[in-house]
């Protein structure tokens, strides 16, 4: 097991201690596993809370701060957090203007956040929930409700976070978040399998010279195994899968995302190919983010997320954000 850890059971707690040590601007509750803005609750602001299994860092804890999330609840590795934790986080950041839960569409996340919403509402916190379900590898029918939430989570958190920071009301923030989720699609490939601390070895056997197309962010195998492809071929496959059910009639936001172990130099090369094929398909790119943002521990591979943009979304994208994982203008 090639891991820089103490013991598997303590990985999440140890990481939270590290975040607390490194980032005094955050309020990190190691015991309760809540990362929140040091200045939360922020008066008159709708709060955004997200969370999910750990192992996707910087998502979500790295996206806590002005202009993005008010709090994040990390679960165990690849395991949704528990309702009490999210309800407590919601209560801790609610200024009275309500809380938006940003939930990735997995049975566990959905069920736990639902229970959390009930608990929080029992305590008088107004809760709205937006589901992120952007992974086109799952199901031809986007309305099936079965699609996984992956890279688009970053867009939802950034854009809705920016709107909340401007002082918009809960209805508006919720509607914007839903609009962004609806306008986003992702597709990912894995070049190696994940090793989780609990398992101590690779989750599945992916021989050198093969790759998995249509992977998620939890180390599960993809939809299809293929002989190794070039960056060019992968970009073609990914973008074409995306454009099969997103038909942008204007510029897009693009996230060229690493799954964790793919070097940045490769991501940039891949980014060049993604831009090339988008150009060939007549899609203009308004903003591009390249890096490891929505990861799967030590998986090698990448995903592409596109979000159909408009003037409002571009304004919100460019708005200041100050988190440990994403920062500009502040």
């Amino acid at each position: 097991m090639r891991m820089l850890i103490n013991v598997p059971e303590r990985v999440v707690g140890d990481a939270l201690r590290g975040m607390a040590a490194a980032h005094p601007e955050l309020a990190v509750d190691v015991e309760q596993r809540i990362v929140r803005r040091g200045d939360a609750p922020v008066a008159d602001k709708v709060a955004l809370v997200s969370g999910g299994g750990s192992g996707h860092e910087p998502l979500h804890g790295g996206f806590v701060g002005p202009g993005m999330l008010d709090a994040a609840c990390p679960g165990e590795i690849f395991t949704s957090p528990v309702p009490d934790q999210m309800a407590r986080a919601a209560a801790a950041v609610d200024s009275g203007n309500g809380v938006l839960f940003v939930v990735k569409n997995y049975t566990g996340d959905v069920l736990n956040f639902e229970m959390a919403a009930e608990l929080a509402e029992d305590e008088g916190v107004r809760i709205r929930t937006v589901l992120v379900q952007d992974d086109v590898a799952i199901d031809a029918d986007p309305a099936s409700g079965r699609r996984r939430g992956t890279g688009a989570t970053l867009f939802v958190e950034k854009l809705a976070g920016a709107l909340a920071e401007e002082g918009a009301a809960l209805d508006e923030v919720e509607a914007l978040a839903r609009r962004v989720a609806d306008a986003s699609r992702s597709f990912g490939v894995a070049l190696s399998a994940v090793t989780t601390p609990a398992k101590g070895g690779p989750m599945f056997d992916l021989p050198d010279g093969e790759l998995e197309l249509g992977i998620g962010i939890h180390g599960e195998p993809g939809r299809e195994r293929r002989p190794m492809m070039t960056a060019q071929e992968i970009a073609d496959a990914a973008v074409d899968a995306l454009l099969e059910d997103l038909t942008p009639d204007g510029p897009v936001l693009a996230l060229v995302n690493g799954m964790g172990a793919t070097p940045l130099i490769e991501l940039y090369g891949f980014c060049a190919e993604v831009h090339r094929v988008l150009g060939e398909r007549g899609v203009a790119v308004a903003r591009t983010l390249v890096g490891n943002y929505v990861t799967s521990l030590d998986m090698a591979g990448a995903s592409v997320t596109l979000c159909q943009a408009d003037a409002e979304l571009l304004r919100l994208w460019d708005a200041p954000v100050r988190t440990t994982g994403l920062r500009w203008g502040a």
Partner: protein
Amino acid sequence: MTDEVSEAPTGGVTEVDAGFVVRWLEAAAVAIDRASGELTELDSAIGDGDHGSNMRRGFAAVGETFRGEPPTTPGAALTVAGRRLVSTVGGASGPLYGTLLRRAGKALGEAERVSGAEFGEALRAGTDAVAQLGGAVRGDKTMLDALYPAVEVLCSGGAAGLDVAAAHRAAAEGAEATVPLRARKGRASYLGERSEGHRDPGAVSSALLVGALALAAEGDDDE
């Protein structure tokens, strides 16, 4: 092996008290702890490799809760255990197993002792609640494929009591029968046809849970 059916006493369990439920879930905790590597292995093949540690963490917490504050009614024992699972497991299995036990506990109300039949019905209500919460049906390759066969056995004993050994057999067979199925719920469903050929981890842990009833019944005999 988790699908080995232990030779439980053939006499049915006719009465269930708080002690029985505590013994049951403590036996389950032991069985799950022992099988947690296997559960994780199964979940690695078609899920995300955390089912073993999820279940172990949850049932260890249930045991602690029982030791801290021993429940006095079977309903309370189930409810407390279900709550504890919800608040410590996370993932899909936390809310689902938590709901199974909470709903069963609710069905038993505040009685200090209930009949085997009532207990069986309570577990059926719990299983129905799992189906409703998760939106799954039998054959979707989930824990329901082990739970339903088991509660059918448990509910069919009448006055003869709970035939826990037969219930375990049914659950184990149900878990085994998930192998050829294509998953339609949960993470395994993302694999499409590649989910075929593997046992569902939740069905296997459910069979363990049902198997632990037999151990609790044995303990009953000792008293």
